[in-house]
């Protein structure tokens, strides 16, 4: 993975010095809250319901075990012994104190981490497929490009006062595990017929108040044009994005209002006009960054590991875990291991400091000291030899970290909601917990199969409910919490925005409602169909009838 050199370190430390000074001036009153708020957001510090919240960047979701241990240390020393993984592969702390935050950033810098640009009207964390570099269906490792883009957009002087936040996601595989279709820019790394590396560029996707799927801007952008093209998109957005209305300020609105053809014309004109600009990145730098993502020292193994296969036959619990949580690795004899952070009845995406240390140790022992955070608020140990899977599973199982529920109905995406977030209109976590408990039974979960359920506590959609097969949106009606149900969304290659199925449900009724949807699906599905497939085949009417039947 990328390791800071003296330039990265210097930038990060100078940034901390600047921030430390800002905090000191805020405390004495030299800096007022309005100006300070804008500045602290650019280092990831929010004010939430009960406390500050610090959002730490995990660039494209990739972490080392040392970094995870440092996150644990920070949780213990400055917070309440836990952290929360988000839908953008970041980590959030819910209880930091203001005057500790410069020290927290200094600790993060010790392990090449920061909170730079995790909030504010700037470019946010570039997210990626959590299986990047190892997935069998991958075309080419996109991570070097993620790092190239990260550096290009960090403290970029032209694009630090955008109309609104900007989010880029990158995928390089047949499956889209990074929800690229609902990002401001979605990049799909591809090869053209000649085998050259390039990107299909989507623009104007997004969730929130007005969900949109991204539209194709370029079918094939040569990789050497990536930075100038991103600059062109950002420049058009910076100059023409709406600044009159905060709810209409994302690039998706500009693309929608201009239409993709006019928007494209502007971007292409801008791109062509900047052809003479100073070189964005040289071949030496590209090679240097690529070298940092070289494959780990894999052992030469056979794809078929008889020992592993025997253990699968002998141990049903191990087999169940393996069936659910493993994914195919491009290297023979290795597997991608998913660690869902969705214990039954637990808070989705939360991990205790002890668990962080434990998982870091497992990463060292079994996965070359690295791990990833995913879009669905889970973790991944990406490079585990098949012959190690059993001992890994035993360790996870002993620690209660081996639920067999990846992509099952209890693998819920859930925002912090009104228990923590000052933007929320309803609580989301208790709903996730109740749904998780209702569907706890493993057999039933497996009978249901793949079902992506996403919960947002407000219209800002941080829980990505729009792209859930079932989505729940918390709203307020007469002072009570209600939940609007959407169905048919997806953030994968079959991307779609979910549609509201009918009137919202009261908190006490919404879990029953979800169960009704699931039972309806089980009753009418054809063999091999997921919930999403059945819904798409027959439409939402049959579900709606059952849901709102009065009897």
């Amino acid at each position: 993975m990328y390791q800071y050199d003296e330039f990265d370190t210097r930038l990060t430390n100078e940034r901390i010095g600047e921030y430390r000074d800002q905090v000191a001036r805020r405390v004495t009153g030299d800096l007022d809250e309005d100006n300070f708020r804008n500045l602290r957001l650019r280092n990831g510090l929010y004010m939430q319901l009960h406390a500050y919240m610090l959002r730490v960047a995990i660039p494209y979701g990739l972490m080392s075990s040392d970094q995870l241990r440092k996150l644990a240390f920070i949780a213990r020393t400055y917070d309440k012994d836990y952290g929360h993984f988000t839908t953008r592969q970041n980590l959030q702390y819910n209880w930091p104190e203001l005057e500790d935050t410069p020290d927290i950033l200094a600790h993060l810098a010790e392990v090449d981490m920061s909170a730079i640009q995790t909030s504010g009207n700037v470019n946010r964390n570039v997210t990626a497929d959590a299986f990047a570099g190892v997935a069998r269906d991958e075309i080419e490792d996109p991570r070097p490009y993620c790092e190239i883009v990260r550096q290009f957009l960090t403290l970029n002087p032209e694009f630090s006062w955008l109309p609104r936040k900007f989010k880029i996601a990158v995928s390089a595989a047949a499956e889209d595990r990074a929800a690229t279709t609902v990002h401001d820019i979605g990049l799909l790394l591809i090869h053209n017929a000649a085998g050259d590396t390039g990107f299909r560029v989507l623009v104007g996707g997004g969730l929130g108040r007005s969900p949109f799927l991204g539209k194709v801007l370029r079918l094939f952008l040569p990789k050497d044009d990536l930075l100038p093209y991103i600059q062109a998109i950002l420049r058009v957005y910076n100059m023409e994005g709406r600044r009159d209305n905060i709810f209409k300020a994302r690039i998706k609105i500009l693309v929608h209002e201009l239409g993709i053809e006019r928007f494209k014309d502007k971007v292409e004109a801008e791109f062509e006009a900047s052809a003479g600009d100073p070189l964005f990145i040289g071949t030496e730098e590209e090679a240097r960054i690529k070298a940092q993502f070289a494959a780990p020292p894999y052992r030469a193994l056979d794809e078929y590991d008889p020992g592993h296969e025997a253990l699968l036959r002998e141990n049903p619990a191990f087999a169940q875990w393996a069936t659910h949580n493993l994914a195919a690795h491009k290297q023979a004899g290795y597997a991608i291991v998913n660690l869902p952070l969705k214990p039954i009845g637990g808070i989705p995406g939360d991990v205790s400091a002890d668990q962080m240390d434990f998982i870091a140790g497992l990463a060292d022992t079994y996965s070359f000291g690295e791990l990833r955070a995913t879009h669905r608020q889970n973790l991944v140990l990406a490079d585990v030899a098949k012959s190690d899977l059993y001992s890994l599973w035993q360790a996870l199982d002993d620690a209660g970290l081996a639920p067999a529920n990846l992509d099952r109905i209890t693998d819920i995406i859930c925002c912090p909601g009104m228990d923590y977030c000052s933007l929320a209109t309803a609580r989301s976590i208790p709903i996730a917990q109740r749904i998780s408990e209702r569907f706890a039974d493993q057999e039933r979960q497996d009978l249901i199969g793949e079902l992506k359920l996403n919960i947002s506590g407000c219209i800002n959609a941080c829980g990505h409910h729009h792209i859930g097969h079932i989505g729940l949106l918390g709203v307020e009606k007469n002072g009570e919490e209600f939940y609007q149900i959407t169905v048919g969304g997806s953030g994968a290659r079959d991307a779609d925005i979910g549609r509201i199925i009918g009137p919202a449900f009261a908190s006490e009724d919404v879990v029953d409602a979800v169960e009704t949807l699931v039972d309806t699906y089980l009753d009418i599905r054809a063999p091999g169909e997921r919930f999403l497939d059945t819904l798409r085949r027959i439409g939402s009417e049959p579900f709606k009838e059952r849901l709102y039947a009065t009897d």
Partner: protein
Amino acid sequence: MTQHMLTANRLSNGAVVYLQGGGGWSGDIQSGQVVAAEQCEALEAEGPLGMAANIVVAPYVIEVEGNQGNYTPVRRRERIRAFGPTVVEQDAPSSQKSEDLNHVPV
């Protein structure tokens, strides 16, 4: 007759606080100063004082119900602010807020 308090977040740690009768800010809603609707404007005017002194940020008036010793905010969001998250955090023995409940004079 409606009852109102002034709430804010403490600058130093973001903790939820309530303006007390003596002018200080406390994390304990039971020690918050309660006023009737007619005095809301005057109450609101205290907010900028706390901000100017760099003690609090984002002050605003909320409605509470109940009596001395069992005041509860009317809105759920404010109840959550007053009494903490309604969920039990990882490894936490309870969902108690950590904010000090002591009176802090201005």
